[in-house]
Every structure is written in C-alpha cells, then in structure tokens.
C-alpha cells in the first residue's frame, strides 16, 4: 500500500515537471498566420475569478458569456461566430499580463478587460505594443485608456467624482459635506480627488475628509464621529458596497442620519447578507445600472442571467454585457473580419468606435471620444422601499 502511494506521488511530481517543461517548449501560435485561418472572432477576457475581487470578475465573465451565446445564436458578428476565453488575473498587474500573454497564445483578436483598474493599466501597455483592440468594462482609472486602442464602458473615476460634486451642488442637497474614502484603493481615491477638486466650484463645503485603508475597514466610528462633529449634512462615500454597509450600520447605531451619497461602487449594497435594508433607505447613488429597472432590456437580461447563473447581475455584469454588444456594433460598422489579424481589426474597430452610438443596459445613446472615454448620462438612483429607484 505504501509503495503504491509513493509511486503515485512520484508520478504526480513527474507529471508536474513534464507539464512545465512542455509549456516551455510549446510553439508560438500568435501572429497573423494563425488568425487568418480562423473563421471566428476570438475575444479574450481578463478579470479576477479567484481572490478578493472575484465577485466582479465572475460577474463580467458570466455576462460576457451570456452576450456571446446570444450573438452566436443570432448568427454571430458579420456572419462570424464568436469565441470567448476568460482568464483569471487575481486583480494583480503581473498576473494580468500573464493572462494577456496566455490569451495571445490562444489567438485572441479583441480584448475585453481588464476588470480592475490596476491590472488594466498594466495590460493596456501590452495591448498598445501589440496594437490589440481593448475595451474595458469596468477599469475606471484614466490611465486604462491612455492609449488610442483602448476604450471604456464605465465612467472614468474623474468623471464620476465631478458628476457627483455637480449633482450635489446643482440640486442644493447640502452645504456641509463629509467624505469617507479608502485611501489605499485606486477607484476610491481617484473619485475623491476629482470630487474635492470640483467641490471648490460648487456651493457646498467639504467639512471633513476621512479615510481608511484596506487593512483597517471594519470600524468606522472615528470617521463618522468626525463627520458628525463637523456638522456634515451629507456624507459622500466613493467606496464599495461592503464597507458602505458597515458605515450605514454604524451611523445608525450612533444616531447620525445625514444623506449618504455614493457612486457605482455602492451598487450591490442591498444584496449584502444580514444587512438591514431599511438602513439604506434614502441613500443616493450614481450608477449606470439597476437590476430592478423596469425597461424591457434590463428585465430580459436580469431574467436570463438569473436563469443561467442563479444570481442577480450587478453593474459589472451589465458593463460586460454591454461591452460585448459594443464590440459587435463597432465590428459591424467597420466591416472587420477575423482575417484582418489583430492589428488590422484594431485599426478598423478603433476608427468605428467614435462613430457608433449604442443603446445598452448602462446607458442610452452611448458614444465614445477618440480618447477612449465613454459619453453617457450618469443616472442617479435613490434607495426607496428596499429597491433602487431612478431619480428623474
């Protein structure tokens, strides 16, 4: 018995070694020759499907798969079928580049990703080198679209910050505002910076700026106490929903009830487990997507997504679903074919991106500037009776 165990073990190790050697020697399959023969558009996806940010990556992966299935069932793009290969990057820059190289070996024509900003910036440098068309569903940092081959579906962080400040100012929601943000997070600090910059032009004053870091995000009583002491009527939360849920909880327990205002990161707060939804009543957030919106498109998407994956789609899923359809629209407009090769497709599609107008889940009449930034109306939602409701 012992002997067999050892044999199995040594076999396993030998197998692992052979695998790694085999990978070292594997043939290079990228380049135009491999692409020319293919009759399908190969779309590569990059995002975290394991680790702390797996929620976002998995949502993007699922929604992209859903969109690809629909497109293929309807006859593909320009008559070509679409293939999707989604690779894990653990929300890390280095792993993102590895995932990108893996997809290149697979023969990717267009890239959907990355999901997170940090990884996206690192991958963007690579796509620029290869002239690969890149459309990120949710990489919101400005550097994600620094090159002309990269486009965004979501708002950039600065746009969100500026839009939030303008919204608060124009609607005269408060005169004294406090901000609680995550200084160790790119998304959060990016929005905060522009919010604070724009706030100077608006008729309100930031009376307290409180920050926390990823290592210390369970107790917010100090930050809330400071905001309360400064007399803030509105607390701006450019953070993700899990921390926001804690903040709402702790604010309620210290009987502090300002208006809470967030960005798209707050989307999903109603789905937090053991969260008393009544606490979120009256919270306003700028988000492009709400799963219980009443329009036909959203309802169909939500129903299909729930049927396929048993989960309510979040904003990331909607962004990814839109991204695939945006790619479709741009490819159809440009008349690109898989035979054009990576660089050829990129040149055609990036030209078409500035000409198309797409009606998607996350916005009606989305257009793109050559800089890669999307132009769409931010939607403000308020949480009313335990559901998101659009503010008109």
């Amino acid at each position, binding site marked *: 018995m*012992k002997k067999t165990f*050892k044999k199995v*073990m*040594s076999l*396993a*190790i030998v197998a*692992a*070694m052979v*695998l*790694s050697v085999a*990978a*070292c*020697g*594997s*043939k*290079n*399959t*990228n380049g135009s020759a491999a692409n020319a023969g293919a009759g399908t558009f190969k779309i590569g996806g990059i995002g975290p*499907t*394991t*680790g702390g940010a797996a929620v976002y990556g998995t949502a993007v992966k699922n929604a992209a798969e859903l969109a690809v299935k629909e497109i293929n069932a309807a006859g593909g793009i320009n008559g070509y079928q679409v293939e999707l290969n989604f*690779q*894990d990057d*653990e*929300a*890390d*820059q*280095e792993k993102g*580049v*590895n*995932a*990108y*190289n*893996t997809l*290149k*070996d697979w023969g990717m024509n267009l890239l959907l990703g990355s999901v997170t900003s*940090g990884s996206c*910036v*690192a991958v*963007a*440098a*690579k796509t620029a080198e290869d002239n690969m068309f890149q459309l990120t569903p949710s990489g919101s*940092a400005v*550097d994600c679209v620094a090159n002309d081959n990269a486009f965004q579906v979501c708002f950039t962080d600065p746009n969100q910050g500026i839009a939030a400040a303008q919204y608060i100012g124009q609607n005269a929601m408060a005169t004294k505002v406090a901000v609680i943000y*995550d*200084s*160790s*997070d*790119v998304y*959060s*600090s*990016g929005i*905060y*910076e522009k919010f*604070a*910059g724009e706030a100077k032009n608006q008729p309100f004053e930031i009376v307290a700026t409180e*920050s926390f*870091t*990823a*290592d210390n995000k369970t107790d917010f009583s100090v930050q809330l106490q400071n905001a309360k002491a400064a007399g803030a009527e509105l607390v701006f939360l450019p953070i993700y929903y899990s921390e926001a849920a804690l903040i709402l909880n702790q604010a309620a327990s210290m009987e502090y009830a300002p208006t809470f205002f967030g960005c798209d990161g707050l989307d999903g707060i109603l789905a937090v487990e053991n969260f008393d939804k009544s606490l979120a009543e009256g919270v306003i957030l700028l988000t492009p997507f709400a799963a219980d919106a009443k329009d036909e498109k959203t309802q169909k998407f939500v129903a299909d997504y729930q049927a396929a994956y048993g989960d309510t789609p979040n904003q990331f899923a909607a962004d990814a679903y839109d991204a695939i359809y945006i790619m479709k629209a741009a490819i159809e407009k440009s008349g690109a074919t898989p035979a054009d090769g990576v660089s050829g497709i990129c040149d055609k599609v990036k030209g078409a991106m500035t000409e198309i107008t797409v009606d998607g889940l996350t916005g009606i009449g989305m257009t793109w500037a050559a800089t890669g930034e999307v132009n769409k109306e931010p939607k403000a939602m308020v949480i009313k009776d335990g559901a998101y409701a659009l503010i008109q």
Partner: protein
Amino acid sequence: MKKFNLSKTTKDNLWTYGIVLVIALITGILLLTGNLSSLMEGLLVPICSYVILAVSLNLTVGILGELSLGHAGFMCVGAFTSAFFSKLTENVITVDIVRFILAIIIGAAFAGLMGILIGMPVLRLKGDYLAIVTLAFGEIIKNVINVLYIGIDSKGIHFSMKDSMALGLEPDGKIIIKGAQGITGTPKDSSFLIGVILIFITLFIVLNLIHSRDGRAIMAIRDNLIAAESVGINITKYKMMAFSISAALAGVAGVLYAHNLNSLMATPKNFGYNMSIMILVYVVLGGIGNIKGSVIAAVVLTVLPEVLRGMNNYRMLIYAIVLIVIMLFSWSPKCLEWREVFMEKYIRPRFAKKTSEEGK
C-alpha cells in the same frame, strides 16, 4: 587528473551556476528562435526577480537562521525608489541601460538601508523578534506608499501625505507617485538578459559570502550562538551583514519587477504579507540553506500556476496540492528514506561505473 579534483563546495557552486546557465541558455535560444509562447516570454522577467528574491531570503533564513516575514517589504522599497528615479530621469538620462543600472543601485541601496535600520535594534535581540518586526515593516511600508504623493514641477519636488491637490503643483508639474494609484508609466527597462545577469550577480554574492570567513562566522551564529560568541565572533555585526545584504538583493528584485510592468502599485497582493510568505515557500520547498533548491523552487512555482491555467478555477486547488506533495516529497522522513534507497539502487551504481571508467 589533479586538476579536476575540485573541492566539494566548489563543485557544488559550479553545479548551481551550471543549472542557471543551462536553463538560461536553453530559454535564450528558444526566445531568439521565436519558439517560446507569449506567456512564457512574459514570465521570464518575473521568474528572474522571484529567483533573486528566493536566493536572497535564503541568506537570511537558511544561512543566518533568522526568520524574515517582510521580504516583500524590501522588494517594495527597491521597486518604488528605483521606479521613482527612473520616472524622474526619464528625459534626463536617455541611455536606457545607464539609467537602469543606476536604478538598480539606488533600489538596492535604499532596500539595504532599510535592512540596516531594521536590523540595528532587532538583531541585537535573541528570539523571534526579527520575524515580528519584519512582518510589521512589510505592512507599514505598503501603507506608507499608499498615502504618499510626490510630484515635480519647475520649482522642484513636492511632497504630501494627504492627496494630490495638496501638492500644489504648477500647471506644468507632473505627479510621479500618486498614492494608491502608485507609479504609472515606468520605462520598461527590464529584460531577460539583465535578469539573468542579476541572478548570476546575486548567486555570486551569496555563494561567495557563504564560503568566506564571514560566511562561516554567520553559520556559526546560526548553529550555536553561545559558542560563536565565546570564540569572539561579533554577533550583531555578522547578523547585520547577512540581513542587510539579503534586503539589498530583495531590493534588486524589486527594481527588476518595477521596470517590467507599466503600473506599479503597492497592493496586498504584490507587496503584502502573502507575497512574503510566497517567497518563504520558495525557500522552504527548495530546502532551507540550499541555494540551488531556491532557484529551482522559484522557477517551478512561478511557472506552475500559469501552466495550470487550462484547468480554470481548479488551478489554485491543484497548485495547493502540488505544494503539499512537493513538501512531503522533500521533507517527510519516509520519503527521504525512499529517495535514499532509490538513489542507491539506480542512480549511484551508474555514476560509480562511469567515474570508475573515467578513472581508467
């Protein structure tokens, strides 16, 4: 025949250099002839930096016998100081290689300096204090960098720990370190060739140190502190020497890492506690005190998760199982016994035959 009668340590060293050289040559040939997949090509520089990290940590853990849990912190210091320097002088020093060599020296110097600063109070103590302090150091450095804003304009360098507006830059200014967003647009100076050269320099430094008089003193401290002290070895000095060299080499790995990626951020993933443990895993799996083993373990364990991508979400599971299997294979007493028997039965007789034939 006398010429070939090298000492055991020299032979062992030559083996280590030889393994690296052969792997590097094969990879280099594959790379030049275009036979390497993009994935592998992209992995080459990270592999080099992890090898350097593993070897440098082995100096602290294996040779000095102290536990360091913040090796990624030193890597972080090296990465950020050098990337900062490269961004600053991107337009001043236009010869890439000169700038990169300077960046390497700066990264190593700052990481080494941090090593000395931490070592000064801690290495005078006996016990596990180094592990505790380095653990804290790794976390602190990551958080400090996440609130650090540095910009430059015509008036000079501006510095803030609040946000980028507090820098008060002139319109022509540019922000170099942008808090949590880190440094973006570091010139891509790292290459496989430079990585391999740095590995050789690292091996040269570490192996020579181990087999020098100083190295024997360091190992004496590891094996018996009281005995070492009684024969007049300056404990703190030698501990400091090994630890700061180890930190400086980790800084070099950080430089290589930083100049390979376009965006450099201090996230828990790349410079946090998990990374430090990952490096420690390389060292432990390769064999504590075994430099050759560290090199091999770092290469295999960096390549493995990427090779397993075909298994999708199961890859992390498989990776963990492989780790456990390797650990059992290389450390379990029964396995060691079995390997000994296996060697006696199949490998040794052949070698013995060969050498005896050569002898004739």
